[in-house]
């Protein structure tokens, strides 16, 4: 055993998380585990963690991701079937054991106690190009073909920003890209760094909310718990957004707040730090970018609608909420920056409601209609709105587009509750997970 490998075993386990359907906040939980580092590209990982249910149509994409990890690597499967071709796959269905299992897997790989996983696909270019075309590089004359495996960048579209027409670059992103909702795949056309077209080629997996929102449709539930779950949901989304905005320190802070959330928690400090650091002045798209018109906002519902000035919130119809003096909190602009502010407003409002409801031990009065963090759930529930991205994202610069995407909850709501054990036991596992 070389000293180098022993030292490498002490490095944090670099994990690429492929989020499949019907999983709880695995990313948010692992992000706080000592000894685990979540990475945004398979090339930077030593462990591929697949969590949740993988629909059949998504397994080939997963194979491609699997084969992108550099050796030595391994895959860990949580509540899903590993690929048959894998020898000795690691399957961990007990969620509490996940952090420790991932850290241990990395350590075994480095110490040579576990062989690197085999490749599942032949290592050949996705586009046939070698030996083709005039010079054998896949291109034909001045245009056409796939030189060196990439289609020629052609300026087939008028530029949508300043008239400076550049070659259009088209590529596919997803379905397990960490900046996109899990399952979403999009075909993106760029001119320079400007999104020209965004076509959803595969819908995102239905999103989940905490079981208490499902329970609230069956019987009365404590408002304090319901509101803390709502605040936690928004803090988790804020975490992902802040991570994308290149602010890991604050992203982690949002997560820590979510982890320790109680009726006496306060989001004012976090809000102040975000304001002082210049999140709205420097990092987020300028006012007027990523705007939803009234029809789009209404269709999407929830916080996105309220950020556009639509004061629709099913909590207004609940007598217990009315006793607490509830009124929907709204913004007017309906743009990306407004939706980010709306998160903070709603977190603040939820914490305030939770504090007061806990004092009076109030429970919900309505069961037929529940305002979930994703939107209203009455006769119908929030359905997939990912096609909206094709209308909202074009004409935005790449970074603006992703921060806008982060501000929109476009996945459908999964009407079936998750098992309760997605959330339990992590705290103990985290303490044990550090190498």
């Amino acid at each position, binding site marked *: 055993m070389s000293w*180098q490998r022993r030292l490498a075993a002490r490095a944090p386990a670099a994990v690429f998380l492929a989020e499949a359907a019907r999983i709880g906040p695995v990313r948010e939980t692992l992000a706080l585990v000592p000894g685990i580092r979540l990475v945004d590209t398979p090339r930077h990982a*030593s462990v591929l963690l697949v969590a949740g249910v993988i629909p059949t149509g998504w397994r080939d994409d997963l194979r491609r991701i699997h084969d992108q990890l550099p050796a030595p690597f391994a895959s860990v499967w949580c509540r899903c079937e590993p690929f048959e071709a894998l020898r000795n796959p690691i399957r961990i269905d007990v969620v509490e054991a996940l952090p420790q299992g991932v850290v241990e897997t990395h350590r075994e790989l480095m110490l040579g106690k576990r062989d690197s996983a085999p490749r599942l696909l032949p290592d050949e270019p996705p586009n046939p190009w070698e030996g083709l075309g005039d010079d054998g590089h896949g291109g034909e004359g001045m245009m056409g073909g796939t030189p060196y495996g990439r289609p020629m960048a052609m300026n087939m579209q008028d530029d949508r920003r300043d008239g400076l027409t550049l070659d259009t670059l088209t590529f596919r992103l997803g379905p397990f890209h960490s900046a996109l909702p899990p399952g979403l795949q999009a075909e993106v056309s760029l001119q320079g760094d400007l999104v020209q077209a965004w076509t959803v080629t595969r819908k995102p997996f239905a999103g989940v909310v905490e079981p208490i929102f499902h329970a609230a449709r069956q019987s009365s539930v404590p408002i304090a718990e319901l509101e803390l779950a709502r605040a936690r949901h928004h803090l988790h989304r804020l975490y992902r957004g802040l991570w994308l905005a290149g602010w890991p320190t604050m992203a982690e802070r949002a997560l820590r707040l979510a982890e320790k959330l109680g009726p006496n928690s306060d989001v004012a400090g976090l809000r102040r730090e975000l304001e002082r650091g210049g999140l709205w002045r420097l990092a987020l798209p300028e006012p007027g970018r990523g705007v939803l018109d009234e029809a789009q906002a209404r269709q999407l519902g929830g916080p996105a609608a309220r950020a556009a000035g639509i004061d629709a919130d099913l909590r207004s119809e609940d007598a217990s909420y009315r006793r607490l003096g509830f009124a929907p909190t709204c913004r007017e602009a309906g743009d990306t920056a407004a939706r980010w502010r709306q998160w903070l407003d709603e977190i603040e409002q939820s914490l305030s409601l939770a504090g007061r409801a806990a004092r009076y031990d109030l429970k919900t009065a309505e069961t037929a209609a529940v305002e979930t963090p994703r939107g209203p759930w009455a006769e119908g529930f929030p359905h997939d709105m990912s096609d909206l991205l094709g209308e909202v994202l074009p004409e935005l*610069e790449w970074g603006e587009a992703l921060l806008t995407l982060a501000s929109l909850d476009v996945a459908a709501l999964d009407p079936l509750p998750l098992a309760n054990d997605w959330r339990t036991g992590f705290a103990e596992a985290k303490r044990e997970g550090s190498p």
Partner: protein
Amino acid sequence: MILDQLILPWLLAWLMAGLGAYLVAVLDRWMATGSTQAGSVWLAPLASAAWLLTQQATTTEAPDAGAWRLAPALYLALAATGLALVPWSPTLVGVDLATSLVLWGSLEALATVVIFLHGWSANSHLALIGAYRYVALGISYLLVSMFVLIGVALPAESLRWTEVVAAQESLWHVVSQPLGLPLFLVVGLGLTFWGPLDLADSTDLSTGTAVERSGPPRLVWALARAAMLVAFSAIAATAFLGGWMGPWLPGPAWLLLKSLAVLVVLLWLGRRLPRLAPERCLTLMWVVLLPLSFVDLIWAGAVALWMA
């Protein structure tokens, strides 16, 4: 002769690049307060380096192999060249050219080329966007850098770093040219694409130019970025904080302390601020910082005349 002019500068530059990069990793980790990172703050960078050394260096479909392999090494070489220009005392200087200040300026420009090369040669879309973004940013911060550097050369009436330090004997430039250092720090964040100006290897591009990198080349790239931060900090201490000057301690010790102070400020800013949106970044550079750098230059000229 050979010892003085070849071996010593070479040793100095690489020693600073290596130790400095390690220090950057330690400091940055230490600053991530409340962070979830496990293990000793001193051992963690070494463990991560060992991990990358054991990892396979993956490739992409038809990269520009030569350029892709060279880019991290070239960026590291630029950082080491920058460190070789830093005067540790009136006599202890790696490379004491009559135009060492101009050479530093050229390193900044070459960094733009190398970073572009790193992203472009991978033949991967996200890396390519990172590369193009960096070029768009690079042009704007290079102009600011040029005016600020001319500002420190004026009082010295020389383009030699040792003369720039000597000209600060009565008053450091951080005082006589108050706009200079803040502007230069922005240049440093741009040059090293660190924190708020990390548009090349950013999270929205899944680490941009480094998205396809793994194994030893990724280690070299990380090492080069950290070494460039150190080189920039040492140059900033030379240009604005009186370089080797100071009471009681020997010159090299003062330079180390001052460079460390600049480094800490840069790392702190990196943790304290979100990434600037590219369009806002360009507006800030061209509309706010560039005019301020004109003011800095006029100010520097007026002060130089008055003090002469």
